[in-house]
């Protein structure tokens, strides 16, 4: 299968940072090192033209190590091309550098990621909860957070 053009360029620039490349249904996902995420994103934006951050979110792979992934869905408005970057994040050090300096839109996305997934962002200009109440305890989208909220019987299905 032909490799995405951006993959080779990124590998050439950051040979040690690209941990894995996955192709699925014609979409390319690159797993990169957490330490270099800001440098990689700046490179993607300035040199490869991925000027639009569509979406940023966290995924909780409870039971695996590292536990979290932060996912960046980026887009190039000139070439109409999509790409996905993923950053593994350990539970013990659930912090990633903010990319809100690269794409301003990351500001709220990162706030949401912190609010619902509990992944913190270094140097974020305004890291507050966004959807949940300010005094909420816990991060609801984590896999170990009960569906019906804390302090209630877990849901066992409609007929049980």
């Amino acid at each position, binding site marked *: 299968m032909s490799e995405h053009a951006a993959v080779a360029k990124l590998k050439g620039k950051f040979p040690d940072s690209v941990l894995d490349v996955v192709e*699925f249904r014609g*979409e390319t996902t690159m797993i990169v090192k957490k330490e270099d995420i800001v440098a990689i994103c700046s490179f993607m934006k300035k040199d490869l033209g991925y*000027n*639009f*951050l*569509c979406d940023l979110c966290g995924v909780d792979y409870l039971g695996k190590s590292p536990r979290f992934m932060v996912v960046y*869905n980026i887009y190039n*408005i000139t070439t109409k091309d999509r790409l996905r970057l993923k950053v593994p994040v350990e539970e013990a050090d659930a912090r990633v550098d903010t990319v809100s300096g690269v794409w301003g839109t990351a500001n709220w996305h990162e706030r949401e990621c912190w609010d619902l997934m509990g992944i913190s962002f270094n140097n974020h200009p305004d890291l507050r909860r966004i959807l*949940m109440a300010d005094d909420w305890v816990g991060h609801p989208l984590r896999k170990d957070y009960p569906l019906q909220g804390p302090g209630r019987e877990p*849901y066992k299905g409609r007929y049980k």
Partner: protein
Amino acid sequence: MSFTETMTVNMGPQHPSTHGVLQLVLELDGETVTKATPHIGFLHRGTEKLSENRTYHQIIPLTDRLDYLAPMHNNLGYVLAVEKLFGITDKIPERAKVVRVMMAEITRIKSHLVWIACHALDIGAMTVFIYAFREREHIMNMYEKLSGARMTSNYFRVGGLSADLPDGFEKDVRDFIDAMPGHIDTYEGLLTGNKIWQKRVMGVGEISGEAAIDIGLTGPALRSSGVDWDLRRDNPYSGYEDYNFKVHVDDGCDTWARYKVRLLEMREACKIIRQCLDKLKPGPILADCPKICLPPKKNVVNTIEGLIHHFKIITEGPKPEVGEIYQGVENPKGEVGFYLVSDGSPRPYRMKIRPASFVNLQALPQMVEGRLIADVVAVIGTLDIVLGEIDR
């Protein structure tokens, strides 16, 4: 020049001009806004968390409730994402694709009608509100004929549609799009040449193309800042590449430009719907993937295979391969995307919704800061936000 202290004023969450439960904390110097801080989350229902505990078919009704002014677009984005995840995108029958595009464009008109109605009402032009809701009523009636519901349609299915078009539906649509350009002329007659309207929207809420891309604006809001980008044309889905339509772009960057672009989009939608009606040929409405798509009720009660497939899909749910996909569609308000992660189980491991309004609202502070408080209302209207989508 001012000598007074600044004053903090709460706007919302109970405020008619905030289009739902949006709270804005405004810092005012006289009538000038020096700082605006949106507070959201009052309508948070945990759609993403709920989705992780439902099968792929059971999530479709949840997506209706995101952008409830354009439910079919959310349905469309979601079912396209699931079809991509299952790898059945190329098996969708032609008729289903055409009906999807047709309903998506009708929904675009429906959503833009609410935008022009509320936007004009907020600024003080009340008549437009009444007119636009009159036309919207026709679309609601069509929705009701088609899906049984006026707002939460839940009409699209993974692999196709839940039911074929009812008798006489095509005539309803044709009558509607024949009349609609005339109605748009009426709105324009009330607003475009209106001096008060022009003064309230021209030069208000300016945002440059570069700033718009940086903050993540999409849809008509981005195209009004001179960025020529429309997912329907640039990353076509559901057969949009077969239609002949124009993407309207304006360099004005202000509320006036967004007003013009949205009106043109409504006219363009009428043209697309007309092409859909011409393309509409009889045929199947559901993909032939019995292990993934819900079988028609006729097969469930008449054939043993249909019954078994139905039973398996309802009780267990179809299982996709391990993988992850992202599918974006051009919602009336901007790009709505679904990012699905599958671990091979019948439920999505993670579903992230990329809401258009959420990201568009983020641009509000920079569009209103330094302007008068009355412009805040105009900018909220022009961003065309829906809180159901912002808070999810």
